[in-house]
């Protein structure tokens, strides 16, 4: 418990968290504006021009989109917090001090994981409250009702919470595996941002090569794709069910967390 408090104090006493919060809120604002414009176009009958159709064109789907505005980049910000919590110790040479105060290194990493999840939750909460207030106002003004009773909407909100927790933990894991701050940040950004498109293309090539459509489903092993799968509706020949995405993400979190603990326990701090 002391360790979680110490970790939170570390974050509060530097300006990093502040910049990340500002970044997250700017991205909420931009994403909200975009999603609101999209919803009013789609629900106004112009869905075809934007290439949106079927399940995605319902008010519930658009509402879910609005209520999760800014979460795409928000997830990246919480992951960065997780990474910085670890790599800062090496970048600023505070690892010595930290491990002198707590020689049990597993506890230190667990403390970081707990503090990171808590921060992920706070970011999710703040983002969601902003989105809910702004979104409900926007949808009601446009006569669609708040849509909050719809399961797709509730589901999107809840699974984003899971996504926030997992990506923060992944951040801590990546930080312990790659202690070089720049290296860790770049790796994480690649894992997250170079998501769907590049991996989709690679798998398309692979499926042509193997002459098998089923291969496409395996895109889910890439974390960013898994994250997408987890929060999206329905499954198809090419997209596995949401829980597969969730399992893959949880798997990554566990593996990186355990690997991080084991490596940290053995590492020489010099």
């Amino acid at each position: 418990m002391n360790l979680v408090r110490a970790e939170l104090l570390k974050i509060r006493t530097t300006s990093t968290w502040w910049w990340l919060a500002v970044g997250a809120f700017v991205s909420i604002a931009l994403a909200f504006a975009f999603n609101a414009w999209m919803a009013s176009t789609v629900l106004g009958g112009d869905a075809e021009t934007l290439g949106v159709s079927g399940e995605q064109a319902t008010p519930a789907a658009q509402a879910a989109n609005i209520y999760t505005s800014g979460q795409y980049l928000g997830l990246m910000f919480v992951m960065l917090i997780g990474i910085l919590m670890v790599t800062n110790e090496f970048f600023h040479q505070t690892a010595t001090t930290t491990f002198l105060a707590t020689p049990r290194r597993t506890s230190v990493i667990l403390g970081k994981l707990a503090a990171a999840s808590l921060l992920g939750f706070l970011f999710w909460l703040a983002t969601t409250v902003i989105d809910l207030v702004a979104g409900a106002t926007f949808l009601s003004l446009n006569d669609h009702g708040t849509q909050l009773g719809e399961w797709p909407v509730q589901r999107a909100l809840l699974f984003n919470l899971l996504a926030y927790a997992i990506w923060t933990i992944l951040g801590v894991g990546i930080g312990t595996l790659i202690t070089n701050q720049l290296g860790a940040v770049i790796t994480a950004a690649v894992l997250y941002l170079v998501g769907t498109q590049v991996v989709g293309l690679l798998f398309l090539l692979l499926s042509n090569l193997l002459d098998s459509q089923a291969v496409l489903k395996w895109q889910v092993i890439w974390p960013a794709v898994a994250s997408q799968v987890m929060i999206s509706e329905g499954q198809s020949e090419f997209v596995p069910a949401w829980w597969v995405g969730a399992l893959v993400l949880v798997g990554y979190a566990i593996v990186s967390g355990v690997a991080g603990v084991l490596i940290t326990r053995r590492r020489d701090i010099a």
Partner: protein
Amino acid sequence: MSDGQRSPTSDGQIVVSGLTKQYRNVRAVNNLSFTIEPGRVTGFLGPNGAGKTTTLRMLLNLVTPTSGTATISGHRYADLTEPLRHVGAVLEASSAHKGRTGINHLRVICAAAGLPKRRADEALALVGLTPAAKRKFKGYSLGMKQRLGIAAAMLGDPRVLILDEPANGLDPEGIRWMRGFLKGLAHEGRTVLVSSHLLSEMQLLADDVVIIAAGQLVRQGPVEQVIGSMTHGGARVRVRTPHAEALVTALKAQNATVDADGQGALIVTGVDAPTVGRAALGAGVELHELTTERPDLEGVFLELTAGKAGIR
């Protein structure tokens, strides 16, 4: 501190036994054994790359030994229940977040170690850093950073203090302050282990020394004894005279050894200053200087570590 951590014989004692650290291509510490007693300041000396920092880091569970053990009060550092209340350490290559204030740096440590928050203010006052408490670490001078490190080490009011080149960057006032501070702590019965290259300072500060070179023990013991062991037959006498030849002849008759120091003075060994004075008077030789040169730690250190490759 629980009572379990205290036993009458090993309380505050540091025991290093057969300690070895093999890095990829260098054996930084090689089968090193020594004991540090409480109530005394012990200087930990050795040329650059001798393995001092590596030894201290192994003692503090930051670096894993290849073999051997290092204990404090009979326990490995990792097994101490409240390590900061027992051991305080200032190490090189340890620092604070550049964007965090000094006081917050200490508060973070207090939070992690379960120490009350007011200890941060007290420790800061102890090292005279209170005026800079709310300034960010990146704006600290070298000496201020060093003082913050000492403050961090004192947070838990520890029984054992371990410092790696703490005088680095301190001004003369700061060095004198630290000398008094560390001597005071030892006087209270605490264990003080301090590594340094400032040998004249160490001679003033330390009661005992442990000298290592190339990862191995060279000499351990009370400062006086270590110095005495190297100065065969006592002090040297420096004399200056316009009639060198006559004096040399007179001194040779007293079985003294005489060497020129290359700067116009003679260095006499084997006899004491009064003997030199009497010999000069007897020979009717005029003297311009007659000083006894006590052997110092620096000379002894250089002699002991000569030829033992420093940087490997």
